[in-house]
Each structure stands twice: as C-alpha cells, then as structure tokens.
C-alpha cells in the first residue's frame, strides 16, 4: 500500500501530538536516511514516549529530547 505524503500525515496529526504534555515540537525528519516524523520532547523522554505512537500512518516516529525552545535574546 502506498504511503501518504509525509507532510499531509504530519498536518493531520500535529495538533493532537502537540497536545501531549511535554511535547515541544513535531516535524518532518529523517532517520537512517528515511523520512520519519520527529517529535521533540522535554528531556524526560522515557516518561513521555509511552504516550506517543511508534508509527503514524506508516511513518516511523523518532522521539528526541530538546528541552524548552526559547526566544534567543541575550
């Protein structure tokens, strides 16, 4: 079965992913050269990853610790 475009898949799920406490971002990424959905989370990855699916519409989900994103003034 042909997978849907990753951008469409991401657009469809981004709102629900961003609602998960501790998630700081969701993006189109790459893992081992293959497209994946990258989820940025606060540093306690193990606690959060139980609430994030491993695959979304055929795309693997990569979870990375980012800590909080902040505006970068001095």
């Amino acid at each position, binding site marked *: 079965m042909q997978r849907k475009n990753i*951008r469409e898949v*991401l657009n469809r799920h*981004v709102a629900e992913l*961003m609602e998960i406490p501790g998630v*700081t*971002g*969701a*993006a*189109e*990424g*790459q893992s081992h050269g293959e497209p994946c959905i*990258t989820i*940025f989370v606060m540093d306690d990855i193990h606690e959060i990853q139980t609430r994030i699916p491993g695959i979304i519409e055929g795309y693997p989900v990569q979870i*990375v*610790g*980012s*800590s*909080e*994103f*902040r*505006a*970068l*003034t*001095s």
Partner: protein
Amino acid sequence: MRKFLFFAIISLLLAWPVSTVFAAPPPGGPPGLERAIAVKDRHADALLAIPGVGGVGVGLGEGGKAALVIFTETPGVRGLPVSLEGIPAIVQVSGEFVALAPPEGKGPKNSSPVVNITSPLDGYVYDSGVLINFSGTANDKEDGDLTANLSWKSDGVDIGNGSSFTIVLVDGTHKITASVIDSVGNIGTSSITITVGQSSPSAWWWSRPVPIGVSTGHPDITAGTIGARVKDASGKVYALSNNHVYANENRASIGDNALQPGVYDGGRNPADAIGTLHAFKPIEFSRRANNVIDAAIALSSSVSLGKATPPGGYGTPMSTTATAPIGMPVMKYGRTTGLTRGQVYAIDATVNVRYSAGVARFVHQIVITPGTFSAGGDSGSLIVVDGTVDTRKPVGLLFAGSSSYTIANPIADVLMNFGVTIDGN
C-alpha cells in the same frame, strides 16, 4: 551428505582450541558416533598428554563410520594409536591452536584514534587578550580513552596537552590542531580555525556603516542580531531582525529606535540608533496559534548599515533565497557565537516557543543542529547555505532554540511579509 557432515564436524573442532565434547550427537548422525564420542571422552586426557597433540575430536572415517580425530601440531607425531576400543583414529595435522585474534598484517586493520575538539567551536571569534578554553577527547578502538595524551598546536606551535587547558592567543586567525598517537603508531587528528581580535563581532559594534551579524535591539530589550540589510522596491534599506528584538514582542511602537549595539552591550538611546522600527509581524501568544515568522524591519540607511558580516564571517549573503531540505549544511553569523556551521535536522516543524510574554506556537519552521549553532543574543541572525552549490543563499531567520536545536523561520515568508529582498550579491 556424509562428506558434508564430516567437514562440518571437522570445522567445528578446528574452531575449538581445546579437546571438546559434543554434549549430544547430532540427531540422525552417522553409525557409531555416540560410541566414538564416549571412547574419545575416555581417552582424551591421555591423548592430549602426548607431546605434539593439540586436540581430539570425532569425525567420520572410511565408509562413513565414526572415527576419532587426533589433531597434531606438526606432522610425524609419534605414539599415536590407529584405533581405540575398535574405533579407528585419524590423524589430522592442524598446526597449533591459537585464540582467534586477527593475525598480524591480516584481518581488520588496527584503527586510528578518533579526536574530537569540543572547544573552541570551529570558526569562533574571540576578543583580543581573552583566555580561550581548549578541550577535546580522543578515543581509540584498541587502546580506549587517549584523551590525556592529546597534543595541541596552534599554527604548528605547541600550546598544551591533555583534555583541557586555557591560553591567550595573539590576534589573528589560528589553525588549531589536536592530535594523539596510539600504541601501534596510528595518528588521530582534528583541526579547527579560530580568530582572535580584529574580527570579533564586538570589535565592530560602533563602526558605521555597521556590518550585519552584530548586536542590535529595541531600547527596552537586551540584545539580538542584525540578520541582513534588506531593501524595498523604492530602494530604501532596512535592518532585518526579529519582532522580539526590534518590536519587543509586539510592545513597541512604529518609529521606536533600533539601537546598535543593543542596550545589553552598552548601546545608548538615542545616540546609538541606526534606524527606526518600520514594520513588524505581530506574534500571537497561544499554543494553538499558527505563527510563521518572528520578524521586524527598521528603516536605516547605507551610511549606518552595511550588507556584509565582519571579516571572518561568510561575507555578503546572496539576494536569491533557497529552501532548506533535511541535511543541508548551513551557516550563520550572530552577535554571540559569531560564525557557526550546522545542518538542517527537520523541516515543516510545529514548535512551542517561550517568550517573556508567554508561549507561542509556530508552524512550518526549520530545525537546525548542533546545539552550538546558536546561543542567546543570536536571535535575528540570517541563516545561509554553506556549500559549493547555492552558497550564501539565505534560507532562514534565526529566532529561537534550546540546548540542542536552533529554530528558524523560512526566509521567503519573512521577505514576502514585508515586500523586501535581501540587499546582497
């Protein structure tokens, strides 16, 4: 089939450095195998006591019958039986059994140590006379951690040893090399280039026209970075930075001064103004918002504002923009970390960003690694392509980050919002 089995058993035994017992014969094995194993077990110690015998096993002899196999280190070992308890014995010259380490000169090559310079960052610019911290690591596959043996040189001259040290270097550009040698003489090395003195972003703070990539800000904020000089259709020129740098997170009024350097760096209002706030895109502070840009422009002039970075930076950006695919190498020049290089890690990112006014969600963002690509004060920096193709074409406007990632707005959205283009090459 029988021949195959024979070789299979022999190969197993050859790979075994000592006399070995099969725990159980293979199911459906050749006739007499079980008995041969029992005989071998009873006589193994005595056989191995004979000088020149390196191993004892069981294989298949003539007619496919089970046989003892006696492995000898050299041909012509004396005193070996031709049969034991009616089981024929075969002598195989195997040479000496050794542990299976790769023989010298063959097999996997001894690898060179891997050296990693963790400080300074490649391309970093320092003020004159400051203590510079050098640190790095060295690891070797065979010898382990060799960090303590690191030898550091600046332009070929020894400057230090080991994992870390500090030193003052004279003004100029320096090639720093850290190297280590492992126990078999393989050399591992890593190099970076740093600049001390004349090219520091702070050295240009009060010059006019001021270069891009240096300190700037609204009078009520700390400091950010001038991303680029941009121009509109009528030829007016503006300094491009973030809303949170020039418009103080929506709080500023059009016409407010843009100072250079920013207040945090000693800029005074109005004496150090290089322009006035001309336009900004309001940020919606909400976790449900669809912000795309954090950007503002300040009307300036070519007398106050140049279009290139200080020397040691990437120079003048190109006027034509590029889009950033995952993996693209990029660079930026900013107030705090100067020239740094990284690569696009993820695209079309939706991220929550914390400001003093609250958290704002952004969509369609570019994510860049490594974490050292930017730091506080680099907000507003222009991110350009770093490569032979499309080099210095703008891709993003830096505005946020964490310890491990930098976030940028797609530059095309920024320029389209204000109806301007990059005033570059």
